[in-house]
């Protein structure tokens, strides 16, 4: 047992923070303009490629593993939730798909530029509803010689409008497959970018595939079959865990600093129990969430069979805590918290995404309950 990060991890977190704080100060990653989002995401990926960040969880790194990744995610998400989500959906979800299911040629084509920070990826999974747990995928690929013709609709594709390549989940010969579609491919139609409650600096859109034809070499066939969709969801869930930690960290910090400096009746407001006790509850949720998420990450590397269950438990707790912490931070910041662009206000809006995206908290609770009743997950 050991409850400390290693010195190497600490050093990495500090370097990452300094590097990306400088970057986010010079390039506002929360801008809503799609072109600016694409430019900022590419700039951030290039910077991150100078560190081990992009490779974590994808290719083995000496002394840095999945737990280090969770700590690093927290650092980046605290600086900019939108940039974090763009980077992670590209690197960790798209990248892990290639790493896990791609052959050597496919890895050379997509993974190498991705880890060099030169490629933006997206994964298109959700269809009519945000969750795919209870419905088979309707998007289908049909073989036609050396090509595959894809038809279907996708929703809520993070990075859809800025991605160079999209991994589209669908069915091929009755089995799940990921179709790798390059932007501007004929038959790929990106719908208008969605306006969202939070993460406004992340570009999200639906897409349609109408007789979209790709070479068969651009198809990934997951060996796990249907379970591969669960794996994709788990990677998303891990990203959302990192996002939740970052949102909480930033919101708590802003509220704490304000409570220490803003005075009422001649005393800093933290001295009043209505404020000080709120901060105490927030800190308790933050520390509990951190340990929960770290433990889930540790289990993912130490005992992958248990990873889904613990990740779901952590996701429910951390995402709901994030909303509560952000809400209380906004309350403490009072008028300042209600102003757009404020850290707490932004965290409050973003926090809701975590409870909906990936495995929703409702489906997660059903799965956890099923497991308690003796069912095996996945």
């Amino acid at each position, binding site marked *: 047992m050991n409850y400390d990060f290693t010195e190497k991890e600490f050093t990495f977190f500090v370097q990452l923070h300094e590097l990306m704080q400088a970057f986010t100060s010079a390039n506002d990653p929360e801008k809503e303009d799609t072109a600016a989002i694409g430019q900022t995401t590419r700039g951030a990926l290039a910077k991150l490629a100078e560190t081990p960040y992009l490779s974590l969880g994808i290719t083995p790194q000496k002394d840095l593993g999945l737990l280090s990744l969770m700590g690093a995610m927290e650092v980046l998400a605290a600086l900019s939730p939108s940039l974090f989500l763009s980077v992670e959906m590209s690197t960790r979800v798209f990248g892990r798909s290639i790493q896990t299911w791609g052959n050597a040629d496919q890895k050379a084509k997509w993974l190498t530029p991705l880890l060099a920070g030169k490629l933006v990826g997206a994964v298109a999974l959700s269809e009519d509803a945000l969750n795919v747990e209870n419905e088979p995928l309707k998007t289908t690929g049909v073989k036609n010689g050396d090509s595959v013709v894809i038809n279907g609709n996708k929703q809520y594709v993070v990075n859809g409008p800025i991605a160079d390549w999209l991994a589209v989940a669908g069915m091929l010969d009755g089995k799940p497959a990921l179709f790798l579609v390059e932007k501007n491919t004929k038959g790929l139609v990106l719908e208008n970018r969605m306006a969202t409650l939070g993460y406004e600096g992340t570009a999200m859109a639906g897409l349609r595939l109408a007789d979209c034809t790709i070479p068969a070499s651009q198809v990934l066939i997951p060996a796990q079959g249907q379970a591969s969709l669960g794996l994709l969801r788990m990677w998303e869930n891990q990203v959302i865990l990192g996002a939740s930690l970052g949102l909480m960290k930033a919101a708590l910090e802003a509220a704490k600093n304000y409570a220490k400096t803003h005075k009422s009746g001649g005393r800093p407001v933290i001295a009043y*129990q209505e404020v000080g*006790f709120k901060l105490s509850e927030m800190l308790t949720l933050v520390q509990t969430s951190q340990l*929960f998420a770290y433990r889930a990450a540790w289990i993912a590397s130490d005992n992958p069979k248990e990873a889904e269950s613990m990740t779901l438990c952590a996701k429910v707790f951390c995402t709901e805590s994030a909303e509560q912490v952000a809400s209380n931070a906004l309350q403490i910041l009072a008028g300042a918290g209600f102003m757009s662009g404020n850290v707490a206000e932004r965290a409050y809006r973003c926090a809701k995404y975590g409870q909906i995206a990936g495995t929703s908290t409702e489906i*997660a*609770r*059903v799965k*956890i309950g099923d497991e308690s*009743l*003796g069912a095996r997950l996945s």
Partner: protein
Amino acid sequence: MDFAFTKEQLMFKKEVIRFAKKEIVPRVQEHDLNKEFDFESFRKLGEFGILGLHFPEELGGGGADVITTVLAGEALGEAGVDGGLTLALGAHTFLCADTLFRHATDAQRKKYIPKLASGEWIGCMGLTEPDAGSDVASMKTTAEKKGDKYVLNGSKIFITNGPIADVAVIYAKTSPELKHAGISAFIVEKGTPGFSSGPNIIKMGVRTSQTSELFLNNCEVPAENLLGKEGDGFNMSMQTVEWDRSALLAPFVGASTYMLKRCAEYAKGREQFGRSIGQFQAIKHKLANIRIFGEAARSLVYRIAWCKDQGRPLNHLEAAVAKLFVGDWSMAPANDAVVLHGGYGYCHEYDMERIFRDSRLAPIGGGTSDIQKMIISKLM
């Protein structure tokens, strides 16, 4: 970071669960109903080695590390042992015996620790007073030095094991004009003239633990019964916080696992509307919440234990966070467990109502949740 227990620790935990299920749990409900202390179970805890787990073997202890000691507490909760017995164990081993182990003379250690580790003697600790709860420094009990004796006067309240203890660690003011710095700690044995206890106080939960007032009426103890030096008492009482935030919280974590198992069994067996109630999402929701609480609390508790094993000074912020979380956040899953059992959950036959009552102590005992929030906000 590494959250793994060693194989030996996990094996020991299994052994404790097996032992407790066989030797203790069958009597839990009856003793809870009768509000009686289970002396037989306490003696068996001593025989198994749990009462003195972390003390050196030469003093009758098990020589275990802190994590193993905390695991034993979790295992008792997981086996279904009631909160009253685990509270009695906590007051005995950590609040009384550990304070003696740390601060008594060698001769006193040899006299008391083996008896306490075996369960031959029961220990308690007297700190709280009718008008001095969280505000310890306002205590009124005094200890006046007269020759080679101290004369103690005052009263204590809410003392776990008070009516049944053979030896007590009593905190009293040797310098009443001082606040914290005026507090000292004394060993007071049962039968000492002027030392008596009140009747068992009937409580909402943890009913098998015996709680009472202690009275000190011109109670004379030898000067060597002063632990450490005059004025050291407050710091001694604070040192028990490390155990309070780990070993005493661990049974609540274990109880959540027990609740989850019992609730799942019930949900699978109970049929309504033609199907087991476990098939209803509302029931799964409750099961999930119980599981999530246990998983969330576990790491907080073991972080305190691990730091103690590393020889680090207590991080008061992390300790308060652990106490606050287990205290305040354990209420909802305990409530869920009762509701999931419906009418049966409200009846003593099913032990969910007992666990619900036992859990209610978590945000009160050993420093209320409000006190934890005061500590956290000050340290922030």
